[in-house]
């Protein structure tokens, strides 16, 4: 190819790249606000199952603490804690943790715990369990996760925190025992963590105010 031809190709490529970039930039501008609002709304909605029956103020997502690994909560990735307040007093803490030993990879779950250490709700956020078997832990597919509402470390006693097949008190899912075992263990470990750290959880400053302090 001659120099002129190479130059022409280069200019064409650059021009088309510029036009395409402009197109993407314009679409981004157009959609940015809506996308942010959607993500916020999705987050708030995904926390709802653990907030039912609670009275609380304003936006829960502002009181977020990110607990980087290693931590004593279930999972080897960062855990997230949302504090829920009503008129300045703590009401509950919502934990987003990972049950590490799912059938196919970690299961991300949301566990709400009120100030008395009682489970307010459990919701499976992300998983890769087998469709039709393990995926019945999703609240849209069966009400299996509802059985944890109102449970605590003393209800049932430690030995009862297992599926019935293992001598515990919780229902199992036909054809899937690994998934329920993993989730039950994660919920119980979350409750244990809450029991040991409840003062610190509510005393800790939020991630956002942390950033402000660090700013010059």
């Amino acid at each position, binding site marked *: *190819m001659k120099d002129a*031809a190479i130059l*022409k*190709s280069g200019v*064409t*490529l650059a021009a*088309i*790249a510029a036009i*395409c*970039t402009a*197109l*993407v930039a314009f*679409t*981004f501008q*157009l*959609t940015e606000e*809506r*996308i942010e609002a*959607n*993500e916020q709304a*999705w987050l708030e909605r995904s926390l709802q199952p653990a907030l039912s029956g609670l009275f609380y103020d304003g936006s829960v997502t502002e009181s977020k603490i990110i607990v980087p690994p290693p931590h004593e909560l279930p999972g080897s990735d960062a855990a997230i804690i949302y504090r829920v307040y009503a008129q300045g007093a703590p009401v509950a803490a919502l934990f987003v943790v990972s049950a590490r030993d799912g059938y196919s990879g970690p299961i991300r779950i949301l566990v709400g715990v009120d100030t008395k250490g009682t489970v307010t709700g459990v919701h499976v956020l992300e998983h890769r369990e*087998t*469709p*039709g*078997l393990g995926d019945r832990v999703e609240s*849209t597919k069966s009400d299996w996760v509802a059985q944890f509402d109102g449970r605590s470390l003393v209800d049932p006693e430690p030995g009862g925190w297992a599926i019935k097949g293992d001598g515990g008190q919780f229902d199992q899912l036909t054809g899937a025992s690994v998934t329920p075992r993993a989730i039950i263990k994660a919920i119980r470990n979350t409750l244990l963590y809450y029991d040991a750290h409840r003062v610190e959880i509510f005393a800790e400053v939020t991630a956002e105010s942390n950033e402000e302090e660090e700013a010059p």
Partner: protein
Amino acid sequence: MTSSGFIDRLKTGLWYENPGLVQLLGLCPVLAVTSSFVNGLGLGIATLVVLVASNGLVSTTRRWIRAEIRIPIYVLIIASLVTCIELIFKAWFPALDRSLGIFIPLIVTNCAIVARAEVFAARNPVGASLVDGFVMGSGFAILLMAVGAFRELLGQGSLFARMDMLLGGEPMRGLVFTDGGWLLAILPPGAFFSLALAIAAKNALDRRRHEKLKRAMPRRA
């Protein structure tokens, strides 16, 4: 283009040269997202829009593009369009975006789109290329919907569940025929079986018609 010409093109895209059924292009999305009707419809529409727009752009710019650099330019155009579609999905259909996940950005790698750019849009005027994008995209989308509906019906015993992801509003359960279904259909092997059945059905129909024609006109055959 005359209306009979358009109908011929439509028949070609939907049946005789259906990108999924006959050309077997873009099988990755066909197999991966068709676990329900709404997923198939969502990805079908996204692919259709990208295909029409990319055919339009490739055809408009075809005179300025040297043959040596055409492939990078197709990739640029397609990748930008897909990014725009992804942003639009995230903004207006967030639930569907979550459900389709990685398969929206992966439209970039759908070879049906590059194939139409190379085979058709690069050598035909803008109008014809837009029509080609529309008929081929529709053929692909209809296949996605058909396989999605078939697998959802067999695997979950329902049809048109979760249409709210496209239409908005409260979660919809769609038409529910039975509770639970034949698990295999929504697992990955179900995708292969369903596509194989669709291709077999098409071939059987084609053969039957061919034989009928032969019998009707024995002398010419």
